[in-house]
């Protein structure tokens, strides 16, 4: 009687493992490259460009020595560009609550992350960082710092975010080039 029970369990468990979507991507726009391209070119690329321009106003030597050591490195893997973009966008969302970084800059970075996730129809897994996207889209009535004030702040977290932005932009460029063939 007991070995009949265990035999049934052993049959069911592998079946459950095969059927459960453990390692499948949480992005659902995979094959709709035309739609992705239209949204990226018409909307998202301008936000990314604006964010890159703002981060370029910071003194570049500020982050030269702060690179490499503790930064999480993101690669835009070949044939896995969408997954790479998802990973970068989800990682960028964590900077939204870093108080050492200028608030407006954080907000714009989160906007780009949320835009990326929306275009690719991706989710960020367990931590549900998409709640940040709801806060980002809410109107901001507080005073924001000016660009001049931005230039004074430079810290490790800011340098990480800047690196992340650069990687995200490059990965989008790579994806666009691939789907342009």
């Amino acid at each position, binding site marked *: 009687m007991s070995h009949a029970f265990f035999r049934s369990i052993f049959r069911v468990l592998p079946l459950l493992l095969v059927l459960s979507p453990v390692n499948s991507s949480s992005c659902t726009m995979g094959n709709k490259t035309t739609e992705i391209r239209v949204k*990226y*070119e018409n909307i998202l*690329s301008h936000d990314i*460009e604006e964010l*890159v321009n703002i981060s370029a106003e910071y003194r570049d030597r500020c982050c030269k020595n702060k690179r490499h050591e503790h930064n999480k*490195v993101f*690669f*835009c893997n070949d044939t896995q560009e969408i997954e790479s973009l998802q990973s970068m966008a989800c990682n960028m969302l964590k900077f939204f609550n870093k108080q050492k970084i200028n608030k407006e800059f954080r907000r714009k970075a989160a906007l780009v992350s949320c835009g990326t996730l929306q275009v690719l129809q991706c989710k960020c897994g367990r931590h549900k960082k998409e709640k940040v996207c709801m806060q980002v889209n809410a109107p901001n009535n507080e005073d924001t710092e000016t660009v001049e004030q931005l230039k004074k702040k430079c810290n490790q977290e800011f340098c990480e975010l800047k690196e992340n932005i650069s990687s995200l*932009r*490059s*990965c*989008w*460029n*790579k994806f*666009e*080039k691939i789907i*342009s*063939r």
Partner: protein
Amino acid sequence: MQGGLHTKHRTMAVPGASLVPILLLGLGIRLAAAHSPAGVECILFNEEYMTCTWGSGQTLTANYSLYYWYENRSPVAECKQYLWERGVRTGCRFEQSEIIQFQPFHVRVNASQDGRILEIPSNRMELQNLVKPEAPVNLTIRNMSSNQLQLTWSSPYPKAHCLEHVVKYKSNKDTSWMKQEVKGDIFSFPSVDYEKFYTFYVRSKINNYCGSTQLWSEWSVPVFWGSNTTSKGRSSPEPPGSPRHPHTVLTVSPWLFAGMAEEQLQWFWIHTVLIPIASCLLLLVLVVLLVRMERVWVIIMPRIPNPNKNFDDLFITHNGDFQEWVGVPKDVVESFKPNYSESICHVSELPYEPLQDSIHPPGVPGPQEHGPYKNSYVGA
């Protein structure tokens, strides 16, 4: 004693020891300043090959070696194909198989001379941002309806969707070029003048969707449209309302283009320099002639007539007597006087009396007292 000697040696050694690093530093600076290249510049030409250069043969004299690697991907490798100029390595050529985009790329150049090696690092590069596409080709003009032209072209770069373009054009009546940014590979010229001769150029760049670069391609070979009486037989004007034909005028070879540019330059010098100078010189000559030659001066600035000498006779000879000078008769002069009076002179006709024949033959007048004029009187 020995301590004193040691002290003396020590004091002598100190200045010598301090000079060595100074000398080494000076040598290093000299090596760096005299032979170090400004920086390494890499360009991907149409994504087919890449060159990384660090100077020219005129300024470099050391022996250079280039090493490169991709971050977190490949080991350090040396350049396989160097570029030479005047016997000095000035760059490195990478084939397509050695190029990986979207991977941080690093380069290090070693300069060695007289046994000393100087490392010249470069910044981290993203090769997708260093792409320089080839110039567009096959420029073609079509006549559309309502005086509109359509310019199309093709690009040797494989991903046309990653390109943005700029069209540069002007007519033979314009003085400056017009530039227009174009996203696709079609440019519409809204209103064309059939009396003018137009020239069009196009160049390309990787757009912001596929990279971040400021490297424009070279300008394309030009294409022309319109009528130009100065350029013989190049094209003929198409009358409006004619059937629509692909009015591909010319794709001109670079040599003809160079000749035309020279001709335009000559005309430019003639119009803007030679003619104004010649006009100014001519004007100057005329002014000088005008001032120096009295005959010319008199024609342009005639003398004002002075009748002064004509009246010398009146004032000197006739003492201001105008009537005498003019020659008016005295009685006419008298008649103009206000107290002038003239006696009346009566004139009558005597009756006719035939005379005796014996005494006086007929037709012979008698003595004066019986003559018809007996009582005639002419008063003075």
